[in-house]
């Protein structure tokens, strides 16, 4: 493995053109990841036609690097402005933004930089060592029933985070799930809840909903504070987390690497659920649960470690089996096909040089997050010094454009502002915005895999639960819900 890694590294650094593409991917991923709504997918889509003029190794490597650094890039705006650059950065905002409000933006961004790098590097190392056996295990043991069980568990955990009461946490998740049913049903393609708008046949897109619930509702909250004379600009602090502070979080980092890696292997789940589950598990195991959502650095660390740990894992089903786990890995399949290659087990034998250049590039891309991220942080924190009355229109317009360019629909901009108003009102009433967002994101995945899973087991519940991964996850999710229900009926006001 080490010999192959060194060969991959020398191919990467030995050719100036390949190195230039690597640097472009690192910087481009960070930049596009940080622009709300635009995301690394936009950059990848723009670059896709140009990869035809690159070698297969350069093309796939470029996309892999964008995937790593883009996943980190969205954390910056999530922490500074409560605007997640991508869905996988949404949980980072839960504690990152409150830290910014407390004048601890430097610590939050520093933790995100370091933990994204750790999660990504750890994931890249496991990917190098175990791609083939892990892919074989996943293909044998993971199918639609298991993915539904994981979604169920993820939602059960999410409902326990946020919301003034557990009932409000559950209502938030249920609202997200019902919003996710708008559009065509995933089995028969029948239009549901379109209320006479043909544009709604394609459903509610994630990006406008996320931007509305997080970014726009935040602008409205700050506008309310301004109107009531209670707005205070967040103090700017460049202080990074100390080694001791980070060392205290070592267990959270290790746990999130495992959670992120496991979620990343599963097709269609990827970094988003990884980040939410990393955050949820951090809350579950913390002795100081009440501090989450109020600026606990462990929240930032857990979600950023988990989402970057998912990036390396997502390459496993792609490279070993030819199964893309998400939109960006699907574009990588297109890059392979443009060069008359098929990702899958044979790539390891036919093009080992390609595989190891990609592995090495992902390893170094995650390392570069650390160095470039620290330099970037020192400059980007100055954005907080811009008066909010000038920042607010910029944020609203970036969010509007980000919502619009996904599908070219003005309806998406209205959905975003509608989500912003609903989010603003629900936040005031103690509902959980993260719960709604996760419900929207996982609703469609959950329904699709439930339908496929039920067809696979011929609607036999015992057959379904005889699958070990399903049984474990369903029991864990049910226990989480039962514990919540027990607490709800025994509830005492805080």
């Amino acid at each position, binding site marked *: 493995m080490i010999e192959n890694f060194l060969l991959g590294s020398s191919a990467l650094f030995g050719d100036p053109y390949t190195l230039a593409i690597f640097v472009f991917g690192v910087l481009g991923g960070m930049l596009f990841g940080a622009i709300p709504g635009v995301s690394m997918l936009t950059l990848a889509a723009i670059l896709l036609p140009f990869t035809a003029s690159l070698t297969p190794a350069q093309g796939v490597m470029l996309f892999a690097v964008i995937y790593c650094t883009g996943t980190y890039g969205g954390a910056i705006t999530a922490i500074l402005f409560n605007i997640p650059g991508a869905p996988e950065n949404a949980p980072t905002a839960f504690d990152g933004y409150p830290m910014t409000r407390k004048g601890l933006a430097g610590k939050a961004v520093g933790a995100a930089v370091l933990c994204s790098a750790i999660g990504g590097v750890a994931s890249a190392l496991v990917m190098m060592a175990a791609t083939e056996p892990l892919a074989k295990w996943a293909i044998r043991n993971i199918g639609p029933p298991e993915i539904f069980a994981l979604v169920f568990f993820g939602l059960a955990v999410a409902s326990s985070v946020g919301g003034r009461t557990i009932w409000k946490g559950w209502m938030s998740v249920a609202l997200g799930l019902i919003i996710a049913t708008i559009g065509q049903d995933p089995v028969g393609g029948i239009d549901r809840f379109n209320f006479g708008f043909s544009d709604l046949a394609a459903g509610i897109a994630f990006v406008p909903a996320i931007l509305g619930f997080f970014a726009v509702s935040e602008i409205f909250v700050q506008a309310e504070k301004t109107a009531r004379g209670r707005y205070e600009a967040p103090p700017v602090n460049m202080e990074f987390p100390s080694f001791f502070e980070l060392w205290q979080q070592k267990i959270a980092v290790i746990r999130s690497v495992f959670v992120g890696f496991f979620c990343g292997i599963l097709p269609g789940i990827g970094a988003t659920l990884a980040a939410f589950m990393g955050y949820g598990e951090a809350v579950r195991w913390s002795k100081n649960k009440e501090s989450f*959502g109020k600026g606990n650095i462990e929240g930032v660390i857990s979600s950023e470690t988990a989402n970057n740990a998912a990036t390396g894992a997502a390459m496993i089903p792609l490279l070993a089996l030819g199964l893309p786990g998400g939109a960006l890995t699907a574009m990588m399949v297109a890059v392979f096909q443009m060069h008359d290659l098929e990702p899958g087990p044979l790539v390891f034998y036919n093009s080992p040089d390609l595989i190891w250049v990609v592995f090495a590039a992902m390893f170094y891309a995650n390392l570069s997050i650390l160095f470039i991220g620290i330099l970037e942080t020192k400059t980007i924190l100055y954005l907080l010094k811009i008066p909010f009355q000038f920042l607010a229109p910029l944020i609203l317009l970036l969010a509007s454009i980000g919502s619009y360019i996904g599908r070219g629909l003005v309806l998406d901009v209205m959905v975003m502002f509608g989500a912003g*108003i609903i989010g603003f009102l629900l936040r005031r009433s103690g509902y959980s915005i993260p719960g709604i967002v996760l419900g929207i994101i996982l609703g469609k995945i959950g329904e699709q895999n439930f339908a496929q899973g039920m067809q696979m087991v011929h609607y036999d519940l015992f057959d379904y639960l005889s699958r070990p991964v399903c049984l474990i996850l369903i029991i864990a999710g049910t226990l989480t819900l039962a514990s919540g229900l027990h607490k709800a009926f025994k509830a005492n006001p805080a």
Partner: protein
Amino acid sequence: MGNLKNSHLIEGTIWLTIVLVFFAFTYDFNQPIEIYKFGATGWPRVILGILLFVTLGNLFHQYRFGSAAQSGRVGISDDDDEADGTTSIGAVLKIIAVLGTPFLYALSLKPAGFYFATPFFIVFIILLFGERRPRWIISITLLIYALLLFLFMMVLNAPLPQGNVSPFYDYSAFILRMNSQFQQLDLW
């Protein structure tokens, strides 16, 4: 009535209305799917059932404890509890204006287009956030407008709404024509 207040009843009524309206609409697409036993309505109806159950649970909780937060809840931001406190009529109007302006902007995008409507939107938002110095308002508006045009029109070539009503459409066409002429200059 226990600790139930009118606001709780209104809140509960809104949720129950959502459940009822969505449930009624499920009959619009209540068709069987040959390969799937539960059809297109199965999943949404189960979720609506869950939503009904948790809404009633929430009302029961409010009946017992009012609006108080449950002990041991996690992930509740300090910023999320702003409902209390008094607000002047001026402040309420300002909040309504801030909530309404983006909607008006979104509605104007189809007829007036992004290129025409955006500068006005920037000015309104800056004013609503309390800035009154004309020099700052104009310069920041131009700066944000130029930044967005550079990034999304010139760099990304993003297709933004152009409007469908004259003279707004003509203005958008003028901006886009300028952009294409500028790009043909081949400055590199």
